């Protein structure tokens, strides 16, 4: 019994480790990696159709700020494209001072971003003034 428990624990740990590496650091995409039961030439069209049907899209998982070496606020965005399809979108970051007032800047323009299906994405935006202490971000479809 003890032996079986050890084997199970070892197997679980091994499985978790290998999953972590593949999921977060190395991404073998569909049609590059080997097909499996859940993802193959038969199931893929169904998965794509279902993804479109339920309207999967972009989600932002993390938005954190830091002050860079020049004293400017930097915004780092980490997100994930839940859709099976590549999602193209635009984003615009506006900067706010300590009183919550909008800082007028020519760098607050719509920037283009693209994220491949079922993939994480990241981008960074830098405030052009040291007065910036906060931000607000807007997104829209990239036509």
């Amino acid at each position, binding site marked *: 019994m003890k032996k079986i428990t050890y084997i199970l624990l070892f197997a679980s740990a091994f499985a978790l480790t290998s999953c972590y590496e593949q999921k977060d650091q190395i991404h073998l995409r569909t049609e590059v990696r080997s097909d499996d039961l859940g993802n193959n030439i038969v199931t893929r069209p169904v998965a794509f159709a279902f993804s479109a049907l339920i309207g999967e899209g972009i989600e932002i998982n993390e938005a954190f700020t830091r002050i860079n070496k020049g004293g400017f606020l930097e915004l780092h965005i980490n997100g994930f494209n839940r859709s099976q399809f590549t999602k193209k979108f635009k984003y615009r970051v506006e900067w706010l001072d300590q009183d919550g007032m909008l800082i007028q800047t020519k760098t607050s323009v719509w*920037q283009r971003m693209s994220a491949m299906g079922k993939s994480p994405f990241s981008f960074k935006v830098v405030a*052009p*003034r040291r007065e910036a202490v906060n931000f607000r971000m807007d997104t829209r479809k990239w036509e």
Partner: protein
Amino acid sequence: MKTGIFQIIALTGVLIAGCEQKTSYIDTMHDTGKAVMALDYRDFDQAASEMVQSMLASGALNKADGGRYVMTTGRIMNDTMQRIDTDQLMAKVEEELLNSGQVVMTSAVGGKGASDQMIYQTRDIRDSDVGDEFDSDTVAAKGQLIAPELSIAGKIFQRNIRYDNNRQQVEYYFQLQVTNLTNGLRFWQKETLIGKRGSNKSVAW
């Protein structure tokens, strides 16, 4: 018969007026207009924004003593097939760099000469007979101008590629670099690519 002709003329007038495209303002904040093959203001906005953010993030403009660098704009070449005033890019970059508090721009020297000719005109007055007409305390003395420490230069160029039978690909490259004029060392550089694909019939110049 006469009434009939008048009616036809009036109807034609109404139809022509109805076909005329009304002039409207562009919503530059949220422009949803179609992309064009040539460079438009959105491309310059995007390129300038990326350039400024890269410069500020790099720390290349952080002066060791905490002061501000004196910067000038050198030569920005337009190597595209379009008639572009490169100030369309540089005015935005200069404005944002100035407002960042990292640099102060000089109008005394630049790739296109002094951006404000009055600097030299007032000095010409000082050195001419007319100079006697001015209060000497209000005329700029010699040795007052500050030389630039950094220069920003670069170019915009274009490549047209046949994509397939019906489409072309146009690539626009924006390249800028910041050089320390004292020692010639390059502090920063960046290239921004804006690519467009469209009909062969569209003209990218």
